[in-house]
C-alpha cells in the first residue's frame, strides 16, 4: 500500500512534464541576413576635398533583436586600406543602423555592438525597407599623400546577434 502511494505523485509529475514539453515549441533559431550590398566606387579625385561614398543596406533579423556588425578591410590584418599594388590608401568606414550616412566609426575587426532597427519582415527588406548604411571616406590629406594611380580593395561586413 505504501509503495503504491509513493509512486503515484512521481508518476503524475513526469506525466505533466511530458505534456508541457509537447505544448511548448522549441526556442526559435535567430536568422539574420545582410543584403542589398553594392560596390562602392569612390571615383576620380578632383584634387579638392574628401572622397566619400555610402550605401543603404538591408539587415534582417528574426526574431527581432539587437545585433553587432564587424568590418574588415583587405589591407594587412584586415586594415581599411585600398592598394595600387605598391602603395596603400587608407579609408575610414562608418556604420549607421538606419538609412543614410552617419552612425559610428568602425574599427577593423572590432564588433560594433548594440545595433538595432533590423528588418524582421523580409530577409531582402522588400517589405519594411532598408535598415542600415555603410559609408566610406578617404580624406584629402590621405589623397594628397598618395601616389597617382588606381586603388582598389574590399570591405567585408559580418552581422550577428548581439
Amino acid at each position, binding site marked *: 500500500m505504501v509503495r503504491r502511494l509513493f509512486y503515484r505523485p512521481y508518476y503524475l509529475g513526469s506525466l505533466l512534464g511530458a505534456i508541457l514539453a509537447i505544448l511548448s515549441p522549441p526556442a526559435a533559431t535567430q536568422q539574420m541576413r545582410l543584403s542589398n*550590398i553594392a560596390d562602392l566606387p569612390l571615383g*576620380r579625385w578632383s*584634387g579638392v576635398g574628401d572622397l566619400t561614398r555610402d550605401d543603404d543596406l538591408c539587415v534582417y533579423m528574426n526574431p527581432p533583436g539587437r545585433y553587432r556588425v564587424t568590418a574588415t578591410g583587405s589591407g594587412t590584418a584586415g586594415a581599411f586600406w585600398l592598394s595600387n599594388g605598391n602603395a596603400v*590608401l587608407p579609408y575610414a568606414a562608418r556604420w549607421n543602423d538606419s538609412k543614410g550616412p552617419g552612425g559610428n566609426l568602425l574599427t577593423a575587426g572590432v564588433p560594433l555592438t548594440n545595433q538595432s532597427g533590423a528588418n524582421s519582415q523580409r530577409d531582402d527588406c522588400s517589405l519594411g525597407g532598408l535598415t542600415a548604411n555603410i559609408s566610406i571616406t578617404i580624406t584629402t590629406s590621405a589623397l*594628397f599623400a598618395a601616389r597617382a594611380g*588606381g586603388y582598389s580593395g574590399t570591405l567585408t*561586413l559580418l552581422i550577428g546577434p548581439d
Partner: protein
Amino acid sequence: MNAQSKIRLVAAISILSMSSIALAATQGSLGTTSTGISALDAQIPVFYKITDVADLHLGIFDGSGDMEQDDDVCVYSNDLGHYKVTATGSGAANAFTLTDGTHTLPYTVKWNDEDGTNGNASLTSGTPLTTQTGADQTEPDCTTLGNNANFQVTIAASAAIQRPAGDYTGTVTFVIAEDN
C-alpha cells in the same frame, strides 16, 4: 632712372584620365550570422601644384647694378616628384619683358629645383625646362618639408640704363607639368 617691376605668377595642374576597375558585390546568406562583401575603388590622377608664389619688386634702378629678385616656391607632385617647368612672360609673343605702356624692358628668368639660387638654370620663354626633381610628394603646400624650388628674375643694368625713366610692370607665368 626709376624702375619698378612686379611679377604675378599662376599655377597649373595637369590631370590624366584613368579607368575604373571591374567590381562585384557579394550578398549575405540567411543564417545565424551573415556576411557581405563590397568592392571599393578610387582613382588619383597625376597632380602638380605650385604655391607660395610671391610678386617680385625689383626696386629702383641705381644707375649701375643689375636689378634682381628671387622667390622660393613650393612644387607638389604625386607622381614621383619629377616635373618640368615652362615660363612665359607678358611681353609680345610671351617675351620676358616689362613695359611702361610704351617701352619694353627685358629681363631674364632662372629656375632652381631646390630652394635658393645656387645651381639655377636659365629659362627660355615657352620652352620647358625638364628633369626637375624634388617636388613635395605628400603635402601640396610644403608645410613640413618647406619650399623646394626657386625662380629668379634679373634686369641687366645694361638694359635698364637704355630705358626712359618710369614704372615698368609685367607678369611671368610658370606651368608645372608632367615630365614625359
